[in-house]
């Protein structure tokens, strides 16, 4: 038995190997890799059920746990198998292109993530791989990176699936779909974005900007089915309150798919349309109680087989003729017989004709459906028939093609032929001995493995569907080009994605990059506002003056300081302003003196003198003094200043009103002499009790000096180059 993590690991390992392979060996290696993956797919399918788990982040209850069982096993095997074919196809498709290696490495990495997604049983492990598939899908859609359309489509797909992924994360964190209605809605939204169900369908047609191998693999056979797979795994058949929404969404998606299948002419867009339909069908199937994994797996596998084949055929046609416009193509069967055969086989499957696997899958699904779902399923089936006829038959039949065409090398038609053949032989394989026991284990009461249901009503309804579809296909081929719809969700999203940056740009001009003075005003205003908010929400405080009433000389000093500051405001000359501020500062020094701190007072005096001198020296180099602010600005600034000053005073009064005990200063006063051996308490604090602060401040001064010298040296070196 192979441990389950092996199936995830091989993809990543192979991607690494591809990245270091020399370009010459790439072709041989990818053919070998393709075969290896095909064999792996078979081996995986034959494995007994097993699980594997490792604790990842127990703190958050996250583990990596993989399980090989039932639907997971079928899906993973499908991913590996088609992956192998796609790798071979991509090698042929890109040929000598230098980007071939990058494409294959990315495809393999994506494949590994996708296998991880379907095998994961832990919600966050699932989310990990979910996001990885979104990311690789982004890189792959934008593979033609010189094309702005591809870049935009890639971005759109990533943003939509990324947003859905985040919503899904919330749903998973809330305990998954079964935990609560809110969680179920979150999971549903995540699944709908990934599986391109209306209203999130619009990114999928855009994703066709990717090279064909990518569209075939990611946006048809595998990744987009991750969403509906999640619906199935999370047991949405039991979450009945969401069924109406899901059915409505599927119905609208089906209508959109039908409309696209009639109006589009690009082979890949047509196929994308029917992919939308198939996804809607799978979503419906997930809501049917008792449908069981067998019916779901059958539809999923049948669709992957014929759709993968047809995508590769479309790529082959493009490669051979240089166009994908279905109206320009006809009669290719003579030039491309192998491709035509494969196309016919896949087309028959897509129309749901016996004896293909798709026929059986469709009949089973219809047999399970209630009337409302039945109608939607028929709608989707009509769309599928239209696309099948237009893509698999019209290009190959009819009058000879006007274009030069040649058969492609086997790498390009082998893949589709294998897939189409499997679709045809599928029923035989189902009946055969190796798979039968395994499949029986998937079956439920209501979906037994019965290949032929007989000529019942269902059969005739199916015949009618096919007839209507063929008729519509002929009509669609002749009708003139459709006008672009008035409203396109893709365009709307695109314009939103371009508008967000321009809003952001305006916002950033609003909140930063204004005048420095305005910023300063804002900072002080915010400070005053926050202090007020804090005071009020804290319930204010009681003012109680513990201090003595002010003495006469204190009043004089404070009045002097305030007067000097006030006069400075209305002065028109710099010298006068500086002198007045000097007076104001000196008054503060006088306060220190009055409170018995002569050393502080001396320091303050020195600083005031130095400041005045330095300013006066600096003024010589400054332009004339001008008043730059208007009246309203001054009023605003004055209000801000008053508010800030007022709040500071208020808080200071509050501090002075409250009792403190056992403070630091008491300790310093007591210990300065006995412990620090200094009679000047301030000095003992600076050089002993809190010496580290002083060291830091010395560093600041030194850095300032270095900075000034750097500025001066810089100017010198610029003037003498």
């Amino acid at each position: 038995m192979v441990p389950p993590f092996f199936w995830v690991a091989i993809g990543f390992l192979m991607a690494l190997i591809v990245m270091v392979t020399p370009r010459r060996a790439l072709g041989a290696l990818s053919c070998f890799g393709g075969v290896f993956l095909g064999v792996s797919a078979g081996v995986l399918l034959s494995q007994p059920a097993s699980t594997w788990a490792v604790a990842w982040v127990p703190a958050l209850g996250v583990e990596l746990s993989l399980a090989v069982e039932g639907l997971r096993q079928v899906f993973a095997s499908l991913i590996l198998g088609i992956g192998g074919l796609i790798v071979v196809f991509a090698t042929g498709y890109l040929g000598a292109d230098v980007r071939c290696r990058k494409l294959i490495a990315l495809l393999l990495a994506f494949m590994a993530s996708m296998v991880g997604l379907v095998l994961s049983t832990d919600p966050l492990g699932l989310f990990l791989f979910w996001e990885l598939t979104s990311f690789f899908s982004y890189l792959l859609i934008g593979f033609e990176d010189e094309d702005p359309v591809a870049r935009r489509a890639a971005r759109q797909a990533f943003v939509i699936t990324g947003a859905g992924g985040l919503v899904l994360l919330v749903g998973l964190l809330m305990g998954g779909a079964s935990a609560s209605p809110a969680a179920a809605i979150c999971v549903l939204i995540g699944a709908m974005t990934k599986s391109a169900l209306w209203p999130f369908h619009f990114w999928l047609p855009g994703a066709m900007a990717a090279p064909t191998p990518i569209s075939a693999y990611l946006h048809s056979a595998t990744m987009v089915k991750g969403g509906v797979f999640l619906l199935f795994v999370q047991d949405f058949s039991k979450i009945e309150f969401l069924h109406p929404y899901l059915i409505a969404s599927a119905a609208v998606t089906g209508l959109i798919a039908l409309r696209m299948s009639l109006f589009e002419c690009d082979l890949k867009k047509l196929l994308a349309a029917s992919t939308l339909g198939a996804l809607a069908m799978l979503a419906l199937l997930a809501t049917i109680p008792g449908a069981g994994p067998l019916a779901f797996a059958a539809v999923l596998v049948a669709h992957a087989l014929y759709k993968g084949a047809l995508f590769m055929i479309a790529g082959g046609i493009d490669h051979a003729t240089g166009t994908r416009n279905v109206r320009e193509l006809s009669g290719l069967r003579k030039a491309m017989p192998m491709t035509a055969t494969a196309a016919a086989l896949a087309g028959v499957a897509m129309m749901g004709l016996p004896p293909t696997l798709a026929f059986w899958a469709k009949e089973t699904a219809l047999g399970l459906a209630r009337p409302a779902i039945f109608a939607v399923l028929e709608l989707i089936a009509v769309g599928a028939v239209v696309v099948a006829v237009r893509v698999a038959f019209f290009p190959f039949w009819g009058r000879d093609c006007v274009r030069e065409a040649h058969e492609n090398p086997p790498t390009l038609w082998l893949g589709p032929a294998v897939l189409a053949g499997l679709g045809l032989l599928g029923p035989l394989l189902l009946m055969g001995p190796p798979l039968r026991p395994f499949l029986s284990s998937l079956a439920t009461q209501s979906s037994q493995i019965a290949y032929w249901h007989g000529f019942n009503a269902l059969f005739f309804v199916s015949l009618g569907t096919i007839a209507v579809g063929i008729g519509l296909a002929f009509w669609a081929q002749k009708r003139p080009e459709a006008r672009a719809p008035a409203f396109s969700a893709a365009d709307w999203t695109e314009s939103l994605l371009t508008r967000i940056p321009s809003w952001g740009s305006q916002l950033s001009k609003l909140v930063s990059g204004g005048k420095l003075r305005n910023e300063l005003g804002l900072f002080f205003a915010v400070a005053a506002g926050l202090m007020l908010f804090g005071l009020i929400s804290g319930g204010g405080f009681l003012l109680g003056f513990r201090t003595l009433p002010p003495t006469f000389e204190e009043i004089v000093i404070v009045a002097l300081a305030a007067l000097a500051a006030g006069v400075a405001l209305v002065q028109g000359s710099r010298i006068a302003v500086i002198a007045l501020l000097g007076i104001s500062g000196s008054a503060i020094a006088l306060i220190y003196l009055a409170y018995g701190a002569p050393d502080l007072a001396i320091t303050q005096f020195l600083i005031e003198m130095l400041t005045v001198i330095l300013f006066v020296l600096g003024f010589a180099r400054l332009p004339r003094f001008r008043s730059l602010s208007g009246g309203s600005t001054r009023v605003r600034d004055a209000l801000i200043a008053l508010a800030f000053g007022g709040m500071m005073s208020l808080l200071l009064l509050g501090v002075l009103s409250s009792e403190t005990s056992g403070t630091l200063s008491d300790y310093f006063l007591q210990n300065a002499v006995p412990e620090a051996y200094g009679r000047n308490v301030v000095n003992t604090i600076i050089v002993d009790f809190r010496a580290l602060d002083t060291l830091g401040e010395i560093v600041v001064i030194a850095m300032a000096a270095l900075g000034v010298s750097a500025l001066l040296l810089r100017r010198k070196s610029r003037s003498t180059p």
Partner: protein
Amino acid sequence: MTAVHPLMVSLLTAGMLLAFRKNRWAMRLLSLAGGLVHLGISIQLFREPSGMLQLGSWPAPFGISFLADRFATMMVLVASIIGLAVLITSWIDVESREEKLGFHPMVHVLMTGVCGAFLTHDLFNLFVWFEVMLMASFVLLGLGEKRVQVSGALRYFALNLVSSLFFLSAVGLLYGWLGTLQMSDIAIRLAQTEERGLLLGIGALLFLAFAIKAALFPVFAWLPVSYPMPSFGVSALFAGLLTKVGVVAMVRFYCLLPADSTLQSFIIFAGLATMVVGVLCAIGQSTIRRILSFHIVSQVGYMVLALGLFNGLGLTACLFYLIHHILVKANLFLVGGIVHRIQGSEKVQECGGLASAYPWLAFLFWIPALSLAGLPPLSGFWAKLLVIRTGLDQGNFSAVGVALAVGLLTLLSMIKIWNEVFWKPLPERTEPPPSRRTLAILAAPSVALGLLTILLGVFAQTGIEWSDQAAQELRPQVVLLEEPAE
């Protein structure tokens, strides 16, 4: 190892470097050696956090306390890694003139300030380290040639000086009120006080001082004008460390306060507003460093939000986010430096074609970019997951919604850089491509930081355990219990 060793190493290195201002290679080697020793000491300190240290053996709370707890040592270690990365980048990135004008000593002084701010347990001493940081970073900003650089530096200096003013005023008021500066002692006294008005009034001023440093909305305007100015290495250093020092101070201070629901919801609101405004502004920018600068604002918002959520895993989320963000954001600036070196421009319109020309650079970009946007399994995913989980646990759905939406917009912004700089065809090549040696030196630190981001994602359990341990030590009641006896 004790809490002062990292500072001693940085300061001694800076001092010695002043003696070698003429010899470029002597400076570089000495500087690098200093960085390596610093890293070694930080690792040792992280492995065995040495706890409280009383400087000069003056008993607490009278002397200055340093506290090397799990939180501080974790931050010092990350800072040391970023410092070393930038020193290596500077060999290419910083012009020899700037080196001679004192680039190397300035970086080490900056590291002194940063580590001092992380390790100190004294509010006034914290202010001193803020000043050291401010002065060193101002000089680093002004070293460059361009005139516009000087104007950005001036704005940086002026607005940060306002923060210093608020800080000093608040410390003064607090000291006048409580009569103490040591943080644990402040916590004890605050727990006993009944005057909530005074507490919240002064607290608001102190919070604003830290908010300016951390660049919260609406007081972040100094950041986007100054960070894109100097060389990329210096930008990376600032981007990684400076705003985060503000956040660390906020965390420390918040943990000293008695629980208060008004304060808590206010901090949550500040975080949310910062996240939204920051990310919207970021998307609107058109040069790499301006985009990244606004993302700093937005990401700091996440940390503050997590701090506001606080209970349960909230504080753990905040600390884990800090570690993750420092590694990632510095790395993105370094990658931006490589882009600039190759293309000669950092305007996204003038760049292009890097994905096919330099595939390895694509890896170097995506690791931090996806981590920033929060994609699994990278570190940013776990950081965001912790925040979202806490929000859900506390029933704060608006916080969860905003956190997710901002994550998506962050992703959109990273997509913008990728689409323009890496995918779009190159407009016209003007500069000759840099030599392999140049690119190797520039890429080496980025590779190392990218590996650390991946490791922090893969071994998220360990990172979360560390953060959780640090958070448990920080919680007020624990701080009270660990109050050292005299």
